[in-house]
């Protein structure tokens, strides 16, 4: 800037031209960004708008704008009372599945990741190599084989059939391991041991407080993973009283199609979808840092 003032004429116009080019580029960039934002937001906007409409308005009014009188209150009442309040039961199931699997998977992953990072034990290398392969195996590939196996021990169509397989979270183990290696020096653990702390004390009083961010990340990913899971509960469960929200909403949707036309179930699917994703969006907005924490490890290692 100062040089432009000090040396007149030619450099100044050069500078201005360059600045114009940069700001033109900036405008293009901003237009691209705004267009993409609108596209990615559109389904959310539609969902919010559609949730305020009754069934007639859902099919007859402009899809992307509100229609008065709105009937969100009525829709919500219907949602929570339809078929003996099965939506609430599904929501309860989802909370149980996500909560138990999330906490369990996090505990298992923490112990295992810590052990991989700080202990040498027989079979360690073999197990860790298999872990790396296991991260890549998608849960969907295992669902049908797991169903076939669990049906042998009569565990299918129970809550355990959804919870137990969800406790295995190889990526969580990997994430904790990397985090322990990067942020928990051996000297710290050694100092606690010299002070007479047993191994468990070292883990709970020294390691865990340091690992808190990693644990929140693993918990978040495990819970959301189970909350969003569809294939596993679809395969495992027959009894609709045990359904999580994903399978339940899908069954409503399929049911609405079978009965064809302007079935009231469509409104319920829309409102039900909105209510189901609200906690996720909230968790997403409030816990941004932890989401990114998990993905950063995934990208760097």
């Amino acid at each position, binding site marked *: 800037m100062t040089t432009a003032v000090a040396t007149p004429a030619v450099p100044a116009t050069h500078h201005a031209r360059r600045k114009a080019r940069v700001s033109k*580029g900036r405008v293009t960039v901003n237009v*691209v960004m705004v267009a*993409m*934002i609108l596209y*990615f937001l559109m*389904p959310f906007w*539609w969902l919010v708008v559609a949730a305020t409409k009754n069934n007639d308005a859902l099919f*007859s009014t402009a899809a*992307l704008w509100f229609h008065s009188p709105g009937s969100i209150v009525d829709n919500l009442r219907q949602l929570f009372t339809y078929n003996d309040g099965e939506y609430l039961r599904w929501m309860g199931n989802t909370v149980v599945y996500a909560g138990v699997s999330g906490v369990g998977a996090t*505990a*298992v*992953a923490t*112990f*295992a990741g810590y052990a*991989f990072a700080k*202990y*040498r*034990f*027989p079979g*360690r290398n073999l*197990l860790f*190599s*298999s872990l790396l*392969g296991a*991260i*890549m*195996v*998608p849960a969907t*590939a*295992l669902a*049908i*084989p*797991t169903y*076939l*196996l669990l049906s042998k021990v009569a565990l299918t169509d129970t809550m355990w059939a959804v919870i137990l*397989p969800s*406790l*295995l979270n190889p990526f969580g*183990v990997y994430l904790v391991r990397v985090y322990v290696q990067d942020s928990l020096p051996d000297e710290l653990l050694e100092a606690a041991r010299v002070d007479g702390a047993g*191994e468990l004390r070292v883990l709970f009083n020294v390691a865990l407080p340091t690992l808190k961010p990693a644990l929140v990340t693993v918990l978040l990913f495990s819970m959301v993973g189970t909350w*969003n899971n569809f*294939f596993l509960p679809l395969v495992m469960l027959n009894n609709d009283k045990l359904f999580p929200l*994903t*399978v339940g*909403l*899908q069954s409503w*949707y399929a049911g609405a*199609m*079978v009965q064809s036309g302007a079935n009231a179930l469509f409104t319920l699917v829309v409102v039900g*979808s909105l209510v*189901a*994703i609200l906690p996720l*969006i909230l*968790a*997403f907005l409030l816990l941004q840092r932890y*989401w*990114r924490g998990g993905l950063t490890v995934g*990208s*760097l*290692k």
Partner: protein
Amino acid sequence: MSLLRQGSAAAAAAAPPDTPVRRGRGTVTAGRSAGPRTGRRSSRTRHQLMGLFLITPFTLLFLAFLVAPLGYAFWLSLRTSTLVGGDHFSWFANYQQAFTDHQFLSGLARVALFGVVQIPLMLGLALLGALLIDEVGSRLAKVFRMTLFMPYAVPAVIGALMWGFLYSPTFGPVQSLTHALGLGSVDLLSHSLMLTSLGNIVTWQWTGYNMIVLYAALQGLPREVYEAAKLDGAGPVQTALRIKIPMVSSALVLTLMFTIIGTLQFFTEPRVLRPIASSVITPDYTPNLYAYNLAFQYSEFNYSAAISFALGAVVFVGSYLFLFAARRRSGLK
């Protein structure tokens, strides 16, 4: 090996009572020199036991819900069960059947076609987005980042449900748009457009996730390199093409691999849209949908197990080899 080490450690731990207590306590130097030695040995055993103790829950789950299902599926896949012949061992007959099965192969071809088009588009978009937010630090860029990532938090089922409504030929907004553009009615759920429509759902759901992964990799790069490039007269586009993209190539390969794996397992979106397009999305639309329907509609468990196992095992072995090579190169132990 481990038994031997534990044995000698146990012997060392047992040693102190034999040595006279007086001597140990009396002579300070002797006590000091003996203490750490036996202490270190017994703590090594304790150390190993603690490691095993901590790893056991994971090991059990790993065996029960990864190794055992895959093993059992493999065993089932080697058998054939018929009403007439009963249940018998048939070696690789099921796999042979799969590779001549028109339904399985057409599903595989469909998923391959889907992947060849959708994956480069989505990853290209994700890379573009990542480069943009890495270059521009504005508030708009922050909103952009959050908005694109948000669909990742939405269950795939609900993503597909929403788009199913939006695609609706009777009242969806996409219809109004094509009418406004003078294109008339476009049936997004028709035979010819279904794969595109599914691709749009997957792109909407996963672009932001991949963008964040690539963005994180870009943020990890040393800034000095850009300064050097800037001094050499490189503009932002040149810097992106010649420096940034090559430097995040390993993150790109990783996202590519995860995306290919996910595409091979394609299931949720076609399954959810099936009720509104049952003539287009056939029970064999994707290999995974086919495996599901074989098991739960036709009770062909052995054949279904063969397809599931083939899909899972290919991924397991393939990615293991890939990671092994990548780990060697990056030096992560």
